[in-house]
């Protein structure tokens, strides 16, 4: 059995449910609510599927005003609220509790306004990541962050997790591409944080909101930056005999002053699975594969890829292959982006998301192999090499007794290793429930207390997305409704 503790639901709240439903109906209408168990069951988990809890109520608001009414009602009646977008969180970020209302923004998926001259778009938070780009691509723009789940994941979820993607080496992550949000506080107050201008006024509250995992408020709209699409882009594949050679090659490319738009690393296990799935043309006889992509005009791409090939030659590569046409480029990326799905077809897996300093890569990979061997498990490694974000996929069989527990234990050891090597627990997936108890390996009690006080400013009674991000024990008093403990504790 998985071992992450979830707090006992509040039986008193569940007993009051019929009254709460009537109260909420009178404020937002029953057609926004999902009451039947089968309907609610669809919201019992996210992409961290080992944990499931059926929420007592699901509400699907269509407007910010409705979100405000729902939150105000929940606040007045002391009910927990779990905000949700597309439910693609890999760390249980939108896992409900049985005594909570799930506030799902999937109906709020409109583009409100596109302003090409100022290169910004205002959209509702339930819009999918890729839908923004689909809307503006015809005019030569795109929305830059590109998490692998971009077809499904919502912008609101991206904001909650500060999502990244393969191309953030050049374009940054969500926090670099969102200029402002409209957000509803737990008491129903609607606030505009940041705005359409590049610079914000006063404290940078937006920085606190982005990546706060639904702890501070419910974002209903956002103003995002639009970036001009590059003239062209082309990847190349470089296969190496060792992780050391691949790591050194990445360092040498950057030392030469070249910042590719993406540098992706796959180990042998990941290459095999992805190749079998996508037929991307990955070399199967190498220990480590780099996919390096550059952008620009045809001429620029040729020059840059040529220089990268020259640099790679110093590290005795087994394969150097520049994509010859757009079809091949698409296949190379399809293989990489399908990695999680491809591995999911052959095995259950836990996807870790630690970040390490690049120089630690060979050492980290050796240790990860050891850790998984110690737990009698296999591992495949995918790595955003340009930014140090490591995704070891710990493979296990959910039907084999004890394997899921061993996988969790191995995952935990890997994340501890990342912190020990100077990195962090999560580069782009978030903490959620998954890494909640590990926060103490990266942060001191004071570090955490300072963060928790920020939560208390926005959500004084700790009713938003409860029992996530912070260690359960540290938040017990606040979740019991005694927020004074964060403001007084020293």
């Amino acid at each position, binding site marked *: 059995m998985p071992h992450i503790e979830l707090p006992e639901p509040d039986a008193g709240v569940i007993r009051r449910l019929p009254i709460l439903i009537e109260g909420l109906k009178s404020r937002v209408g029953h057609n926004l609510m999902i009451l039947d168990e089968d309907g609610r069951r669809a919201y019992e988990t996210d992409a961290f599927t080992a944990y499931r809890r059926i929420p007592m109520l699901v509400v699907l608001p269509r407007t910010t005003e409705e979100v405000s009414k729902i939150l105000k009602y929940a606040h007045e009646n002391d009910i927990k609220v779990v905000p949700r977008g597309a439910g693609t969180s890999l760390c249980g970020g939108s896992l409900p509790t049985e005594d909570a209302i799930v506030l799902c923004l999937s109906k709020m998926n409109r583009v409100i306004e596109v*302003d090409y*001259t*100022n*290169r910004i778009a205002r959209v509702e938070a339930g819009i999918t990541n890729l839908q923004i780009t689909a809307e503006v691509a015809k005019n*030569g*723009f795109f929305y830059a962050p590109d998490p692998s789940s971009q077809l499904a994941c919502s912008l609101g979820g991206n904001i909650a997790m500060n999502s990244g993607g393969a191309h*953030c080496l050049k374009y940054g*992550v969500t*926090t*670099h591409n969102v200029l402002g949000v409209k957000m509803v506080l737990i008491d129903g107050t*609607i*606030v505009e944080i940041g*705005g*359409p*201008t*590049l*610079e*914000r006024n*006063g*404290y*940078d*509250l937006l920085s*606190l909101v*982005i*990546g706060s995992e639904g702890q*501070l408020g419910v974002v209903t709209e956002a103003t995002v930056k639009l970036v*001009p*699409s590059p003239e062209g882009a082309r990847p190349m594949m470089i296969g190496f005999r060792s992780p050391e050679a691949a790591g050194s090659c990445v360092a040498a490319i*950057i*030392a030469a*002053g070249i*910042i590719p738009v993406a540098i992706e690393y796959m180990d042998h296990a990941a290459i095999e699975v992805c190749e079998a799935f996508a037929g991307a043309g990955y070399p199967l006889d190498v220990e480590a594969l780099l996919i390096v992509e550059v*952008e*620009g*005009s045809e*001429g*620029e791409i040729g*020059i*840059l890829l040529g220089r990268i090939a020259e640099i790679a030659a110093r590290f005795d590569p087994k394969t150097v292959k520049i994509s010859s046409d757009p079809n091949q480029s698409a296949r190379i990326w399809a293989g990489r982006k399908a990695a999680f799905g491809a591995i999911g077809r052959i095995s259950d897996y836990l996807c870790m998301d630690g*970040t390490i*300093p*690049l120089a630690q890569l060979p050492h980290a990979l050796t240790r990860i192999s050891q850790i998984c061997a110690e737990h009698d498990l296999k591992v495949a490694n995918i790595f955003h090499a340009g*930014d*140090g974000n490591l995704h070891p996929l710990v493979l296990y069989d959910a039907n084999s007794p004890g394997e899921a527990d061993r996988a969790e234990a191995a995952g935990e050891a890997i994340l501890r290793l990342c912190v020990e090597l*100077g*990195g*962090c627990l999560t*580069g782009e997936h978030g*903490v959620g429930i998954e890494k909640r108890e590990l*926060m103490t390996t990266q942060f001191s009690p*004071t*570090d955490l207390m*300072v*963060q928790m*006080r920020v*939560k208390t*400013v926005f959500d004084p009674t700790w009713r938003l997305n409860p029992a996530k*991000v912070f260690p359960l024990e540290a938040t017990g008093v606040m979740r019991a409704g005694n927020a004074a403990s964060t*403001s007084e504790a*020293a």
Partner: protein
Amino acid sequence: MSELWRPAAEWELQTMVSKLAREKRGIEIVGHGALRNTGRVAKSDVVLTTAGLKGVTLYEPTELVMSARAGTPLYEIEAVLAARGQMLAFEPVDLGPATGAPGGALSIGGVFATNFSGSRRILAGSARDNLLGVRAVNGRGELFKSGGRVMKNVTGIDLARGLTGSWGTLAIMTEVTFKVAPLPQTMQTLAFAGLPDDLAIEAMNVAMATPLEISGAVHLPRNCAARMRTPKIKGLDKSLTLLRLETFAAAIDERREKLKAALKVYGAPIELDSEETFSLWSEFRALSVMPFSAETSLWRISSLPTKAAEIVFAIQKFMDAVAFYDWAGGLIWLEVPAAADAGAADVRRAVAVRGGHATLIRAEPQVRSSVDVFEPLKPEIERLTRGIKSAFDPNGLLNRGRMYANF
């Protein structure tokens, strides 16, 4: 004159702040004094300088990351970076000379505490965007860290970036970790002469919509252009619209020709090479076109590019203002005649109806104490702002009154 406290190490700074917090004594935070003439005047019992916290503590050129103690002078950091062919991509602006404070005194802590980024911000993001982690001591005397040394990090609430632009009112940064970037191999500038403001802003935004990675887009109306010193463009007696390109040497000519083609309708530009480009854009880093003067006050206005010219014209109806536009119109530097309110009422009214916000950068201390230096906050945002201030500094000891009169 308040007492001056000068910790030589982080632990000592924390000890001092803890002691001051127990005694509930107000603390003004300074580095080397570059920002003392900017912002509101803090009310304090002691002045605490981070000048003793100096030195680069981590530099990994191949990982594009550096850490430095907060009091490290910016010029020292830039020298260390330049020796390895790297730079701070966001091109920080040293306000010292323009505000009558010493030049070259800006510390790296001050860079992030103010989040004033330079022209390259439109390509490389702001100081805040390039910050990765901090260590800091809050008004309770607690030492805490946030973020780290890796590019991607979503572990917990992003306090590091949340501290940027807070002017030392939440915590005293003791060490900062930030992204660095390779120096461009080569640069060129296209200078269009004689365009009126609205047309110039249109041209800059046409350029920004191309994939040519414009790294600077500045427009100087005629009176401000007359203050430029770079030989090829000085003394033209015309407005100047400047667009900077940067890339590797083999690619730059192609990009320049593409940019010229995209902007053909705006006329034939003057072309500046890499060296000329370097000297030209360093004028904006020191803000030398807005030189210190007791006769004038200086505003910094954040606007939408499409509204920028309108904002300046609206202000010029009321006063003799000299402006220039950076960030393709996303930022306005505006010089106005010195007055009891530094023109605040008219400036803020012009900005309010068009979106954006204005910060008073330079004025006599009594003016900066009597008018709002930072754009006043909406009530619900002020409530959150006060909440955050009180979470970090419940007794209001750090840089009290530096941003807002009452906290």
